[in-house]
């Protein structure tokens, strides 16, 4: 069949026309493609290049070395210890169960550790190193290294981890570090990318926590090229970070250790302050705990043990605990009265065993009364009635103002956790906080450091330091950061009549050195080391009239938690004061029997910079002291790895 030529011509015409239309359409589309290329590759090339670089380059943080913490003599309190661990890379291992089986023959690994490791290894990408076991001994690492050919994919790795060589002795001051938690991140406003590193260690308590920014340092970065799966192809460059600053504390580890040792067995706290510059030489709180447990991840049993102990080992009672200061507050009341001009030092007030104020009887500790007492006798014998009268004369506002001047009722700025502000109560406080009006009985109670008055051992040490020097000494815990000394706490001379202060100091001297002083039993018999102090016994309960009538006032008859707190403050040597000491024994009973001996021992230890000779003690106690010294010498401290007293 032959098509008519006309038809063929017509067909060719149509095909040509339509083909040209189609070709034009195709050209248009290709033009669009070309324009798109031009737009993406030329106009927006920089943006896409940037995105490609972001894809390709991963910035890994290099955690800085955490700053070290030393005592005043350079004894290490917190260090970074090399920590060996065994790591496995799945893709190099081949049969992981087989390799792990061989590993367990060399190194003793619990089954659950192996099971957890297998789970973790299978969950991660094959090239990600997974830690099988942490804190491995050097011997085990050596075995693994020697047998490396039989253990493909197993790597002996070394990292740094925090260690506290002084163990329990510095737990409350230095604190401890732990892995950053979601709670930490929600609580602190800190943009540091280091915190995003899983298990990055940050300070949780104490100096570690308060000086976190100083100790942490800044992250270095490592730019690495990664592929789409995150595998590292190569390192492009590396910027080293800045190590954390080293911190030198004012603590004297030898003394600190002694204080902890001396407090052991009690629920107690003691603070030793250097009168020259406010340096805190020892901040003890007992019982204590091993901070290294927390760094490793504390077991539930250990945690429960620490948390449920009624002696509250986790609490730093030295700065966190607040107690009614009891008779140790009497210097404040006396000074306030003298400064207010309502009292002369020689003036006597009659004590008949109690004082009646608007129908309520306020008792003196000695129910038979002290008779006529002047300032000197009132402090020496700790007469309560004398101070009730002073309180009524002086008024609470003057007393509270003097308390604050002496460093009570306000928070001292030292880098420890939850430093308490205590309380120097006045009318405004009671109205605003309690919603009640101030009553005259409150003043009477406050004048002997009871009622609403609260102070921490740290504050009592500051008070004693200010009384001893007449300067507004402030406590200092950080001596220097990276070798740069921090401002001294020496303080300016206070606007207080030096004559009055001298009277009070003399009375405090007799508290300790006069045969009728309340702390005569805890005196020091070396003339250059004699101390001046004040006992305190603060009630934690009200003695009801019925109880008083029955005569059940003896502490030993009461359950522990209802017994009185025993307090003691002193400074020494009297002639040339160097140290202020404050001691509290929770529910310890009388200040003269429970707290003063501790204060004396600590003072002697500080003055002699080590174990004092027995000749410093009155002859009747030397036998007991010798035994005590022997016991302390042989003491074992939880978590301590270096013996600073050797």
């Amino acid at each position, binding site marked *: *069949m032959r098509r008519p030529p006309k038809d063929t011509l017509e067909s060719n015409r149509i095909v040509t026309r339509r083909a040209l239309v189609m070709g034009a359409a195709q*050209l248009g589309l290709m033009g669009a*493609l070309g324009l*798109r290329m031009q737009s993406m590759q030329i106009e927006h090339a920089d943006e896409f290049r940037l995105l490609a670089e972001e894809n390709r380059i991963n910035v890994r943080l290099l955690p800085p070395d955490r700053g070290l913490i030393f005592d005043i003599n350079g004894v290490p309190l917190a260090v970074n210890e090399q920590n060996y661990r065994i790591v496995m890379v799945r893709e190099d291992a081949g049969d992981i169960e087989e390799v792990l089986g061989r590993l367990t023959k060399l190194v003793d690994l619990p089954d659950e550790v192996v099971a957890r490791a297998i789970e973790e290894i299978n969950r991660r990408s094959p090239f990600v190193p997974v830690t099988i076991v942490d804190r491995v001994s050097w011997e085990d690492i050596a075995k693994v290294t020697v047998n490396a050919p039989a253990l493909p994919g197993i790597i002996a790795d070394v990292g740094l981890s925090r260690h506290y060589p002084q163990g329990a002795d510095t737990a409350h001051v230095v604190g401890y570090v732990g892995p950053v938690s979601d709670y930490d991140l929600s609580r602190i406003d800190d943009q540091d990318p280091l915190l995003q590193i899983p298990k990055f260690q940050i300070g949780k308590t104490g100096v570690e926590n308060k000086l976190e920014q100083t100790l942490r340092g800044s992250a270095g970065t490592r730019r690495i090229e990664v592929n789409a799966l995150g595998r590292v192809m190569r390192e492009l460059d590396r910027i080293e970070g800045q190590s954390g600053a080293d911190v030198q504390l004012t603590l004297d580890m030898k003394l600190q250790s002694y204080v902890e040792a001396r407090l052991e067995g009690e629920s107690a706290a003691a603070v030793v302050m250097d009168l020259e510059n406010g340096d805190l030489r020892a901040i003890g709180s007992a019982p204590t705990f091993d901070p290294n447990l927390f760094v490793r991840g504390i077991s539930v049993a250990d945690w429960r043990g620490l948390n449920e102990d009624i002696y509250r080992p986790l609490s730093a009672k030295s700065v966190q605990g607040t107690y009614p200061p009891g008779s140790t507050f009497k210097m404040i009341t006396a000074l306030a009265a003298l400064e207010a001009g309502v009292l002369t030092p020689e003036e006597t007030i009659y004590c008949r065993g109690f004082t009646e104020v608007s129908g309520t009887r306020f008792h003196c500790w000695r129910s038979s009364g002290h008779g006529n007492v002047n300032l000197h006798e009132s402090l020496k014998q700790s007469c309560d009635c004398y101070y009730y009268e002073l309180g009524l004369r002086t008024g609470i506002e003057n007393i509270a103002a003097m308390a604050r001047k002496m460093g009570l009722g306000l928070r001292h700025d030292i880098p420890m956790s939850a430093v308490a502000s205590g309380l120097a109560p006045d009318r405004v406080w009671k109205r605003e906080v309690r919603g009640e009006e101030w009553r005259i009985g409150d003043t009477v109670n406050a004048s002997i450091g009871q009622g609403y008055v609260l102070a921490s051992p740290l504050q009592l040490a500051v008070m004693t330091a200010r009384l001893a020097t007449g300067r507004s000494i402030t406590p200092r815990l950080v001596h220097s950061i990276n070798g740069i000394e921090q401002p001294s706490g020496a303080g300016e001379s206070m606007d207080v009549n030096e004559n009055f202060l001298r009277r009070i100091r003399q009375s405090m001297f007799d508290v300790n050195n006069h045969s009728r002083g309340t702390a005569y039993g805890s005196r020091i018999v070396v003339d250059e080391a004699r101390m001046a102090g004040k006992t305190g016994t603060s009630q934690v309960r009200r003695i009801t009239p019925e109880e008083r009538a029955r005569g059940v006032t003896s502490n030993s008859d009461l359950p522990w938690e209802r017994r009185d707190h025993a307090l003691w403050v002193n400074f020494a040597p009297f002639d040339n004061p160097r140290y202020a000491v404050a001691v509290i024994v929770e529910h310890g009973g009388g200040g003269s029997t429970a707290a003063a001996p501790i204060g004396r021992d600590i003072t002697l230890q500080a003055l002699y910079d080590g174990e004092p000779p027995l000749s410093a003690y009155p002859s009747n106690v030397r036998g007991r002291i010798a035994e005590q010294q022997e016991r302390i010498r042989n003491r074992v401290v939880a978590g301590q790895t270096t013996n600073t007293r050797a």
Partner: protein
Amino acid sequence: MSYLEYNARYVPVGFRKLLYLNWPVIILLTAVSGAGFLMLYSVAGGSATPWMEPQIKRFGLGMALMLTIAMVPIWFWRNMAALAYIVSFLLLIAVEFFGSTGMGAQRWIDLGFMRLQPSELMKVGMVMLLAAYYDWLPLKKASHPFWVLIPLFIIVLPTLLVLSQPDLGTAILLVAGGGAVMFMAGVHWAYFATVIAAVIGTVVAVFESRGTAWQLLQDYQYRRIDTFLDPSNDPLGAGYHITQAKIALGSGGWTGRGFMQGTQSRLNFLPEKHTDFIFTTLAEEFGFIGAFALLSLYALIVLFCVISAINNKDRFASLLTLGVAMTFFLYFAVNMSMVMGLAPVVGVPLPLVSYGGSAMLVLLIAFGLVQSAHVHRPR
């Protein structure tokens, strides 16, 4: 139109036919394939295996097939058109029942030495049958509704099979390729206007039906559409492919990052970097200049085919040439649009460059037919 129409005296015979081949097209095809080999070498990290070497072998085989087919007179192929279509169609049905599953779709039959995708064969078979149909059909009947219905069936039947695999990309190519042949054959404009209107209606229906019991597409296809419309809303999930492809392409700049220096492909950020997304590697490593050069090569291939078709007075030959050119155009246009974020990711390879046996062989066979049409054109 039968062979009687040819003036046989003017048709070259024997090896003289080699001189009458459309050489520019052969050179262009070789150039494009060569670019493909280079890219396959690059994405393999500078290695001939696993992709470049088999691809070269297939190219050699394909070239041999092309030349063989070119030697056979075009009227023979016209007579084979119906057979080619029927065989392709049966294979498409076979793949429904015996096909292997890959990437969630039943697409190929394993022949042992290669995986055959009948849907690729169908692209050629359908173009051949349509060209033969319009060659047979008197011109004035071309726009008659009844005679329009027949080619519609020829297009729709295999398309439905392909869609059921499911393979949206090939289905689009089949419909567009077939439609182009009908258009070129002179079917009235109004039909195409109607179809385009219907397509728009369907698109609306597809979106409207989403989430209902009678939804028209698979979930993954909807996700691909979502991704296309806004790749940034799921950069690590479904949008990953297109986002990374655009980054690779865009980061090429004017001159590219250099051969084998493309970080996106070398570090495996690119998906399917040796198949559907190979163009992004080329664009990343050779920049705008390289990408535009490849586009130009493609354009020249289409141009030479169109010129050959216009100059060919045989209706079957010119329709076939135009149909093949159109199919080829659709391949690279859809692929490039897809990787440049202008079209949804529908799984269309870059012709002759992407790694893959069926597509390359079938394309070279199709160009064999184009060559045969060129060699045996009436003079």
